[in-house]
């Protein structure tokens, strides 16, 4: 449909975060598996061919690890709730310096299932993050930063440019060790090579700074006092609100206003301060990423999925199937439909341009 281009990273992140929120609302294994599949499907259909776009798979594996860890924990430290005992392991009580935790005992299927569900949920959330990272290029993310974070953004960009060169440099230095008749293997070589790399990096920094400065970096229109004051005010307001909000989170006695509403106010205030701070800097963007129909579709697809989960919860569908007694998880049809909507980006997001050159260059540099 549209010409190959990179979708606005914000859209991808909205979509991914919405999916993550879905995952957090359920322990229903069926839904969670479907959710992971959906994320994977979209990633495979719309990712670029640059190194970081492979990270989804790694996140999946990380998810599996989390599940395993969770199960192992259950087996070792699980509280003994009645149920069908699968097997039981000898019970040991750790010494007091290790907090006298007792380990072992009978392991019931119910508890394992509960653990599995929780692990699966965490894995699904990780999958969402993985999807986001592999779908949008870090460079684009930096370009989308609010202007108030411009300096930090530039620093990160610089780091990005420099990192591959640092890798090359460290290899050269290790070779140089050999040229000087020292071993180029082992931790000592690594440590010794770190220093020259650092030296080079620092020299590089000075040169770079000169180049940036003489290309007009940090030339900012005088931030008008009122704007400055406004952003500071917003910051302080936001902090107070957050403080109240987090207190409300901790204490059930606190009135409901002191919970999410307070947090929301805080978040809005801080975001506002960032934007206000940004406006005081006169700087323009070269070919900024547009936010047009595909962006809307992608972000809305995520939102629809989230809404469907909320709705399913309201309709009393079993988003959290009982594990004690163990029952077959029902499949809330609404949620399933919502998740299917979340696959729309696989067709409606523009195909990314092939960046073979990028990956090769990075590979060469590395």
């Amino acid at each position, binding site marked *: 449909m549209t010409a190959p281009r990179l979708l606005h990273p914000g859209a991808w992140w909205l979509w991914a975060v919405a999916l993550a929120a879905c995952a957090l609302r359920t322990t229903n294994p069926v839904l969670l598996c479907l959710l992971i599949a959906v994320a994977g499907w979209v990633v495979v259909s719309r990712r670029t061919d640059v190194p970081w776009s492979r990270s989804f798979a790694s996140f999946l594996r990380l998810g599996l690890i989390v599940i395993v860890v969770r199960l192992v924990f259950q087996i070792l430290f699980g509280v003994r709730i009645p149920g069908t005992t699968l097997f039981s392991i000898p019970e040991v009580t750790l010494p007091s310096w290790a907090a006298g935790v007792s380990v072992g005992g009978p392991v019931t299927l119910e508890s394992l299932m509960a653990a599995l569900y929780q692990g699966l949920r965490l894995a699904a959330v990780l999958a969402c993050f993985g999807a986001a990272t592999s779908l949008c290029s870090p*460079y684009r993310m930096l370009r989308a930063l609010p202007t108030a974070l411009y300096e930090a953004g*530039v620093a990160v*960009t*610089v780091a*990005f*440019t420099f990192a*591959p*060169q640092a890798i090359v*440099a460290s290899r*050269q*230095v290790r*070779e*140089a*060790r*050999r*040229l*000087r*008749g*020292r*071993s*180029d293997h082992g931790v000592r070589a690594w440590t*010794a090579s770190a*220093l*020259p790399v650092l*030296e*080079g990096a620092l*020299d*590089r920094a000075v*040169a*770079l*700074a*000169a*180049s*940036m*400065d*003489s*290309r*007009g*970096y*940090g*030339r900012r*229109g005088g931030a008008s006092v009122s704007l400055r004051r406004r952003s500071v005010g917003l910051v302080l307001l936001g902090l107070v609100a957050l403080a109240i909000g987090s207190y409300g989170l901790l204490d059930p006695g606190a009135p409901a206003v002191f919970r999410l509403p307070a947090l929301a106010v805080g978040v809005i205030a801080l975001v506002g301060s960032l934007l206000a701070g940004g406006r005081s800097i*006169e*700087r*323009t*963007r*070269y*070919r*900024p990423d547009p936010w047009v129909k595909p962006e809307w579709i992608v972000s809305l697809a995520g939102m629809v999925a989230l809404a469907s989960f909320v709705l399913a919860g309201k309709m009393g569908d079993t988003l959290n199937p009982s594990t004690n007694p163990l029952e077959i998880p029902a499949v809330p049809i609404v949620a399933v439909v919502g998740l299917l909507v979340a696959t729309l980006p696989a067709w409606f997001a523009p195909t990314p341009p092939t960046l073979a*050159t*990028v990956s*090769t*260059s*990075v*590979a*060469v*540099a590395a």
Partner: protein
Amino acid sequence: MIRFEHVTITYPEANAPTLVDVSFEVPEGELCLVVGVTGSGKSTLLRAVNGLVPRFSGGVLAGSVVIDGKSTADLPPRDLADVVGVVGQDPAAGFVTDYVEDELAYAMENLGVAPEIMRRRVEDILDLLGLHEIRHRPLASLSGGQQQRVAIGSVLTAGPRVLVLDEPTSALDPAAAEEVLAALTRLVHDLGITVLIAEHRLERVVQYADRIVMVPGDGRPVIVGTPAEVFGQSSVAPPVVELGRLAGWSPLPLSVRDARRLAGPLRERLAEVELSAFRRTPRVVGDVVAITDGLQASYGPVTALRGIELQFRAGEVVALMGRNGAGKSTLLNHLVGLREPASGTVRIMGAEPHRLSAHEVVRVAGLVPQDSGVLLYHDTVAAECSASDRDAGLVAGTTRSVLDQIVPDIKATAHPRDLSEGQRLGLALSIVLASEPPLLLLDEPTRGLDYGAKQRLVELLSRLAGEGHAVVIATHDVEVVAAVADRCVVLAEGEVVSDGPARDVVIHSPVFAPQVAKVLAPLPLLTVHEVELALAAVGDLPFS
């Protein structure tokens, strides 16, 4: 356009000023060449143009630097960005972003140029510098010449009237250098931009220069004038100019073309004598030190070397020439055992270097890498020397004594990274030489060296060869090759395309021929020195 008025610059922690009472003016639309020996303050002068000195380095600037009516005392560099553009020696070191287009737009983003204007200017610059095919490429994937052109473009987009370049071609091979210089001349002629450029390899740029600022260093006043005027009296000059001086031509020729026009009579006179007598006497070569047999090397998919068959004998100086990426460095790395041959063998004194322990390798082969700095990682010269003695298991002080022979008067307490290019090279070289390897390899040793330093290097290399070292230099510098090499091996795409006496290889190649050879062709003379000898024999030296 550029006006220096009684400028005296003193760095903090420096006891003497680097530049003293410099006054000159460069009118709009000129290409002005800044020459001078290393450490004479060329860079300081260039960086003072947009106020990087002293604002960035700290220190005191007495006098005033006025660019297009704006004084650097009033405005910091960033506010002069749309007046002066500065390009450094290593383009990659100045890149902020990762893609060509972003890099070009960077300056304009900072200046807050309206998006549509930005877009148009980027397109213009892409065409002007011929970068449109690579506009979407990541900077890391570009060749040196392309990178340097992007660097130039990235300052041009801000629309400066003045362009300052500090040795823009010193890191490039001849072809890439030509790319960049061609682009520069186009800028001067088409856009009337004022260009201030420092360059060691005068032979590359002299013919384009309208004016020359000669910085003699150590406090002597700068000399400003047309090339002919300046080279009449300056010590540093390209071979063609020296030849002109020797033959007493006037006006002094600045390009091979001018020189050839004037060289007719000289050629006739030299044709009378048997020139072979005045050639550098070929060295007596000993037995084979290193031998490669069907050497193949590859980085992943790309084959870097294909079936190299070479021998290096004791007492000969071999020049490895060829484009960047022709496989020169790879060959050197294999000779010193940093890489294992994909197939074929490398043998030094009968041993395969990559099988030897680092400790043993340094005794048979020594390599001074392109960036000699990577060999140095202690914080004082003294520490480097003693460490090198320890590494190679030599008696303490060996390295230092070698160093004193190569570059005398280096402070033992100096930090290696604060040394000048030449001094650093000397230090690295002495560390490698300390354990007296029979095979000595140098990768681009003349990079960033001025004529004086190059001369010293040439002498050093010939002495080492005389002592029975087999010396291999990978270089683009034809003048150095002409001066020191016995044998010349030209690589292309990982294959040996020609291997023979340096004189023959060099003379018959349009690319590698030194200026003197070009001027005097078909006469087989390579250096001014040889011409001088020949003329002496003929008996009519103009100034004898």
